[in-house]
């Protein structure tokens, strides 16, 4: 645990004139183009990464809107065809009394995606201007976003299981609605957006501001 300690202040790799491969963590002198160990491109800081973050973020957000407007599930029984959206389905569940499952669905498909959009936007903004939130907290936020992002796919899997399982001839059949595609795209693009964010920039921000002098 105490093995990697260095006396005094912790230095950034860039202060030592080295750069680490983001894929395999091999350390190279600054100016190295490609990692000789794994072949990945080595870059000091990816200046374009914020643009990529925002572009993917926007696509994710645009997919999230139809995901909530179109039906997620289409339930056909003998007499009726019923379509339900994400929120509509959860409300139905509450009416049937399964509050727990409804909560899981609301958290996984509404609260987490919205929180994720806000968190990524906040992180991307916070590295370009002074932030009151400490670096450690922002790093933690980033890790939470990265970890939790995948779990939003749960709703897609539920739809997949339900619509393959509940195919009982004339009695009842469940099929996926168009919202499932948009929702999956939204999850995938927000995951890509979070991956595009170079978390090392959180730790650069201080220096960046000092270097910028009295601009404001």
């Amino acid at each position: 645990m105490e093995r990697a300690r260095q006396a005094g202040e912790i230095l950034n790799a860039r202060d030592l004139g080295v750069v680490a491969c983001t894929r395999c963590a091999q350390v190279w002198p600054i100016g190295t183009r490609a990692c000789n160990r794994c072949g990945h491109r080595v870059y000091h800081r990816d200046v374009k990464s914020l643009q990529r973050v925002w572009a993917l973020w926007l696509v994710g957000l645009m997919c999230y809107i139809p995901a909530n407007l179109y039906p997620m599930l289409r339930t056909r029984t003998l007499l009726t065809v019923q379509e339900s959206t994400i929120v509509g389905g959860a409300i139905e569940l509450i009416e049937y009394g399964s509050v727990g499952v409804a909560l899981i669905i609301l958290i996984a498909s509404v609260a987490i995606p919205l929180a994720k959009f806000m968190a990524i936007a906040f992180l991307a903004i916070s590295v370009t201007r002074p932030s009151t939130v400490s670096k450690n907290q922002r790093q933690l936020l980033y890790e939470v976003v990265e970890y939790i992002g995948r779990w939003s796919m749960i709703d897609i899997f539920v739809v997949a299981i339900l619509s393959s399982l509940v195919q009982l001839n004339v009695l009842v059949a469940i099929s996926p609605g168009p919202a499932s595609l948009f929702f999956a795209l939204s999850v995938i693009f927000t995951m890509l957006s979070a991956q595009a964010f170079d978390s090392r920039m959180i730790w650069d921000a201080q220096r960046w501001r000092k270097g910028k002098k009295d601009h404001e």
Partner: protein
Amino acid sequence: MSASAANPREDLIVCPKCDAAYALVRPAPGERAVCHRCHTVLITPRRKAGVQIIALSFAILVLITAAAIFPFLSVSVGGARNTVSVLDAALAFSDGPLIVLSLTTAALIIFIPLTRVLLSLYVLIPIVLDKPPARHAAQAFRLAEALRPWSMAEIFAIGCAVALVKISDLAEVGFGPAFWLFAGLVVLVVVQDNFLCRWSVWNALGKPAKS
């Protein structure tokens, strides 16, 4: 290529998350090196980890194949009955443009976990046997690591639980053998991921081939 001007700095280790640089001191097996700034685990060597991971990988390989093929869940209402496999569930989105979603789902829950296991076997077996790394082993391991967030077997398992609760009052649900295989699979995938010390693997891959 190997004769290029830049030599790697073997004496340093840099935290991939926050860019903090430390003088490299290898922890003893069982110990861990942790970034002091953001608490990312940098090195966690374990004795015999390689052999254990290979054993786990073979188990996962068998389980994935079996879980994908055998009946997974069955449902019955009155006289009507339906049994599905994991593949059937993945391919449920067969309606027009939703076919894309079918392929994605199948990839996320079966083919990406499968690919990762095969890649890690390819990379780890020569290392454990003390042989020179396999051809393109570094690229293979890089791909395995890049695929890590997209391997979603454990999320699918929780999805099953939610789906079962959703239809439990609508119909009678039965578990097939694949359901239990899949449950075991999820545990193994998580254990395998946490066993692997990525730094040690990269370190072994960076060594020039022995004669």
